[in-house]
């Protein structure tokens, strides 16, 4: 295999050494009954006709396991929109992977959840858009979503799956974070993931309606810290803070191409779910090349591996192996340059402007959303 011996290089031609991935996000469909205005799917959604088959997913899972992946996060869109979801799950378990199912809870009946249990789902992660029917239904753009989620949660408990509640927070619901944590506890969740909206793609179109204030970000931090102490040994709180109000950027993906990868509905392989916002980057597909070759040899995965590609101030920064220069997609969105220091970093020359714009968006009075929808036609 001559190809395997080729020297992987970053986008400047510096040699890099790929590690092994631990986790894979499998976005098996972009179809979703919800229309959340901060959806992490790309703005150009993949249509059902382009989705790869359950057998294709089986091949991808086996390749992933051979590559070192231990866990798969089966997500979407809403993964339940695929009628063959149980078959996809079964393939993942057969490959030896630990299966996390990330769902809105909408469109999966009790019978189907029992079927998914038999197929081998290890853990269920249920999204929460708000804390009451009115808020949850308005944010998700789906009347009745709250009641369906609560019923779904009952079935999860009945079957005995470990449950994680996934709460996305932003300006319009952050005050209710204590109630979300209480609800997760009441539902018997082992974990709650509290993630502040990340302003890529759809969320970027809704900055004025979603950007939290600095005071809210501080409030959320205090709620999380107090909750962790109160709930020690009973429920885990994982927290993704509002990085527009932070001093340093988040270590996106734990470093580009270092421990995780994302496979989209049509088989496109991405270093992170938002990577397609880097418009000049070309991504490869599992229908054309093996996952191992894409991981080790593709230009997209190698582009930002290591630290040699970094510009100043990252290059001389002692945190360059802590946060890896931050998020490449955020650098693209805010600096217009995917190589730049993530502008949310206080050391970025663009930082003052980013903070000013975030404060301006946070002070906006609009509450109207641009909902995530598939475009017509095509």
């Amino acid at each position, binding site marked *: 295999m001559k190809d395997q011996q080729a020297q992987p290089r970053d986008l400047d031609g510096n040699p890099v050494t790929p590690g*092994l991935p*631990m*986790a894979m996000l499998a976005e098996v469909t972009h179809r979703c009954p919800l229309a959340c205005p901060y959806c992490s799917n790309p703005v150009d959604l993949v249509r059902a006709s382009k989705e790869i088959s359950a057998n294709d997913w089986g091949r991808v899972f086996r390749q992933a*396991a*051979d*590559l*070192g992946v*231990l*866990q798969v*996060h089966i997500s979407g869109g809403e993964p339940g929109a695929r009628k063959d979801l149980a078959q996809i799950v079964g393939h993942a378990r057969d490959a*030896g992977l*630990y299966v*996390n199912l990330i769902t809105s809870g909408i469109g999966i009946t009790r019978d189907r959840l029992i079927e998914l249990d038999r197929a081998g789902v*290890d*853990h269920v*992660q249920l999204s929460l858009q708000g804390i009451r029917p009115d808020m949850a239904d308005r944010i998700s753009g789906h009347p009745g979503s709250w009641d369906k989620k609560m019923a779904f949660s009952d079935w999860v408990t009945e079957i*005995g*799956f*470990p449950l*994680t509640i996934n709460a996305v927070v932003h300006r319009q619901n952050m005050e209710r974070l204590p109630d979300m944590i209480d609800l997760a506890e009441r539902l018997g969740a*082992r*974990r709650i993931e509290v993630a502040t909206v990340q302003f890529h793609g759809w969320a970027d179109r809704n900055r004025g309606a979603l950007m939290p204030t600095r005071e809210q970000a501080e409030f959320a931090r205090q709620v999380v810290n107090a909750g962790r102490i109160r709930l*020690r*040994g*009973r*429920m*885990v709180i994982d927290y993704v803070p509002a990085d527009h109000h932070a001093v340093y950027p988040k270590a996106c993906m734990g470093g580009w191409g270092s421990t995780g990868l994302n496979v989209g509905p049509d088989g496109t392989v991405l270093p992170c779910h938002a990577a397609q916002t880097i418009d000049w980057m070309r991504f490869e597909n599992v229908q054309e090349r093996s996952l191992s070759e894409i991981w080790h040899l593709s230009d997209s995965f190698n582009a930002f591996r290591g630290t040699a590609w970094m510009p100043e101030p990252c290059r001389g920064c002692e945190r360059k192996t802590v946060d890896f220069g931050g998020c490449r997609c955020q650098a693209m969105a805010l600096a217009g340059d995917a190589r730049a220091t993530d502008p949310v970093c206080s050391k970025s020359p663009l930082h003052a402007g980013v903070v000013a714009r975030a404060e301006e968006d946070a002070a906006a009075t609009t509450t109207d959303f641009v909902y995530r929808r598939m475009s017509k036609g095509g």
Partner: protein
Amino acid sequence: MSTLIQAHDIPYLPRGVRLQGDRVRGIRVLQAPERALQLDQIGEAILSELDGARSLDQIVRDLAARYNAPVDQIAGDVRDFLTGLIERRMVFLKDAA
């Protein structure tokens, strides 16, 4: 770090948490919701003892006998290790029946 486990508690791996071999890296891992912990030999030795029947106290005594080590030292190591996992909800406790 205050302990979350007492000598009479019976620690066990709940549903959704399991020990598994990592054939690519040649190690053992603890698979749990959204986490795969790479285990060293000590961690693996401790977790292999969790059978849902024996208490912490019994497990410590068995490990001390097997590795010919002082009970107090083993007790501290095991309690600290399990407390970390209890905090992460990867190990549950039940009372002796």
